[in-house]
């Protein structure tokens, strides 16, 4: 059997532990509970944002429904000093990096192009252009290398970079060029491809005739497929790849096999191209459900904890509703801020023009 026919799975869709020759779970009970909490709250966040878009409070939203385990498992394997480069769907990654959900909404409401300080959270923010950031991630990883932050063996010093993208992005030149650079310089970057089966309406087979992870071989990068709906496997595989990267053993491509249970964005209508039977099949493989069964079976998740989490989720939803509506619109003249490092006389003239128009319209 070809190695790419198999998918690393440590917890099956029924919540039973699966033995694997290469990986085993190293997670404590409290860490597993933490992952469960993350996934529940991120799903709440996602559902609430979708609802806010439907109510006209957001211009658009890209749901992560179904991809909670891939995002939480991988991002929780990151260290504080690592850096995440994400697409527009990685709300779960941003969550793990400590970004406030309301700050995530700024982008989708159209009040800011970037709702948080990338350097503060060590999370680059949403990237709309498919695959462009894979090169940025690779360059950042090269920077860590040049700065001597790779292979020192000091736990808090060595850095790695996560580059998130989807199956569609695997076709973009930028992503393939990122593989070339990462392999050439053995940069400490982990390419984490969430294969959610769909690039809007196009199935993964339009992008690739082989498992996506297998592409890595041709670039001289190890490739590995993981069950993207198994949060434990996603954590362990990513942890392994990040460790390799930090210790100077170079890049890895991880293909997390999952399914986009929602629309591409709130503007999309997946009923035009997705099969209902496929969606039902993947509903059975729900990432939250299987961990819940496991935790309940093990007696780790009590009814009391469940109630507590439900309360936390509804409080989060309520806060998002309240604070989203309160997000201030930018001042129109702020469009002239941050175009250049230096003051630009031409722009200042235009800023004055916009301010004059506003005064004029207030007087009328």
């Amino acid at each position: 059997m070809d190695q790419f026919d198999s998918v690393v799975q440590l917890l099956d869709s029924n919540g039973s532990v699966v033995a694997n020759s290469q990986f085993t779970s190293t997670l404590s009970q409290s860490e597993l509970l933490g992952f469960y909490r993350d996934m529940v709250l991120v799903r709440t966040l996602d559902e609430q944002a979708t609802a806010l878009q439907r109510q006209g409070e957001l211009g658009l939203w890209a749901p992560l429904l179904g991809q909670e385990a891939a995002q939480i498992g991988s991002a929780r394997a990151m260290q504080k000093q690592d850096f995440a480069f994400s697409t527009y769907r990685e709300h779960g990654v941003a969550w793990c990096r400590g970004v406030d959900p309301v700050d995530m909404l700024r982008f989708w409401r159209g009040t800011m192009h970037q709702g948080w300080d990338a350097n503060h959270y060590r999370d680059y923010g949403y990237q709309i252009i498919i695959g462009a950031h894979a090169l940025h991630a690779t360059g950042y990883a090269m920077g860590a290398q040049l700065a001597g932050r790779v292979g020192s063996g000091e736990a808090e010093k060595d850095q790695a970079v996560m580059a998130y993208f989807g199956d569609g992005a695997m076709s973009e030149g930028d992503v393939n060029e990122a593989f070339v650079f990462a392999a050439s310089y053995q940069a400490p970057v982990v390419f984490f491809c969430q294969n959610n089966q769909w690039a809007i309406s196009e199935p993964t087979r339009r992008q690739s005739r082989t498992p996506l992870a297998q592409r890595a071989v041709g670039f001289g990068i190890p490739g590995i497929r993981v069950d993207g709906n198994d949060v434990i496997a996603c954590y362990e595989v990513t942890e392994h790849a990040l460790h390799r990267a930090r210790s100077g053993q170079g890049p890895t491509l991880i293909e997390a096999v999952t399914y986009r249970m929602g629309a591409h964005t709130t503007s999309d209508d997946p009923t035009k191209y997705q099969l209902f039977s496929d969606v039902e099949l993947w509903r059975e493989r729900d990432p939250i459900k299987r961990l819940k069964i496991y935790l309940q079976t093990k007696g780790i998740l009590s009814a009391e904890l469940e109630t507590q989490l439900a309360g936390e989720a509804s409080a989060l939803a309520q806060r998002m509703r309240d604070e989203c509506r309160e997000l201030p619109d930018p001042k129109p003249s702020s469009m002239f801020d941050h175009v250049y490092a230096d003051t630009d006389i031409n722009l200042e003239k235009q800023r004055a023009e916009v301010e004059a128009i506003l005064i004029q319209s207030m007087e009328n």
Partner: protein
Amino acid sequence: MAQLSIVHAINQGLRRAMDSDSKILLMGEDIGKLGGVFRVTDGLQKDFGEERVIDSPLAESGIVGTAIGLALYGYRPVVEIQFDGFVFPAFDQIVVQLARMRYRSAGALTLPITIRMPYGGGIGSVEHHSESPEAYFAATPGLRVITCADSNDAYWMIQQAIASDDPVIFLEPKRRYWQKGEVNIEANMSDALNMYSAKVLTQGSDCTVIGYGPTVATCLQAARFAADDGVKLEVIDLRSLSPIDMSTLVESVNKTGRAVLVHEAPGTGGIGGELAARLSQACFYKLEAPVMRVTGYDVPYPPSRIEDDYLPDAERILDAVEKSMNY
């Protein structure tokens, strides 16, 4: 006559073109089963098959690059770029390869490719979905750049673009996609206005206002407001950004003595600057005031909550008209 939205008119234009020439292929992301994110190609894959309406991998440079190869083989590809902000991975193929193939091959190689692209803002979307990249293409010798502002033009200009042996960038004003209008679908293509001609929309003696694509409706709105104040604006839909139909513009500006140019793209390096230079030269002795521009500001497209402050509106056009009149 038929009442069609711009989306539907382009769809019908594509359908008619494909019916008449089996060498025409459509290529792009999500254009098949989904019918494109704006549904411009809705139903075409069902009727013409997967070999003529091709859902491509997610790679813009790949789409345009392979379209060039298909055209070399004798096909007539019509490429969809999903959003204006997504065209740049294909920029190299368009500007470096597509634009100059005829020239560098001394006429031996012809690339009759049409690149369709929704452009412009005003739809409340996130970044990279509201760009106006037309000046890059208009500044590239070898490319033709046209844009429609009404359904009839959408229907005919897409067919003219496809029929042209030159590569044509066909810009679709996305915030006007659902604007309806009369389309003369019974006519022949030879009867339709040449795609490189500008079109005078309202006759006026006081000031010429020139827009294209999404700003044409704004210019017409300004003309209605101006008419209430007894000022007669001559609104011209430029339609073609390369080539520019100078004779229509010059005739109008020589008559009114004034010109206001309107576009969403930033002013600096924009089409307005090119028009201003040409009109100043051609109409110097007839001009009563400098040529005025009303454009997007020289900033990246702003967050959508303030896009209305960025986009030229009727008020800003009327301010420019007033400045011109009082000069």
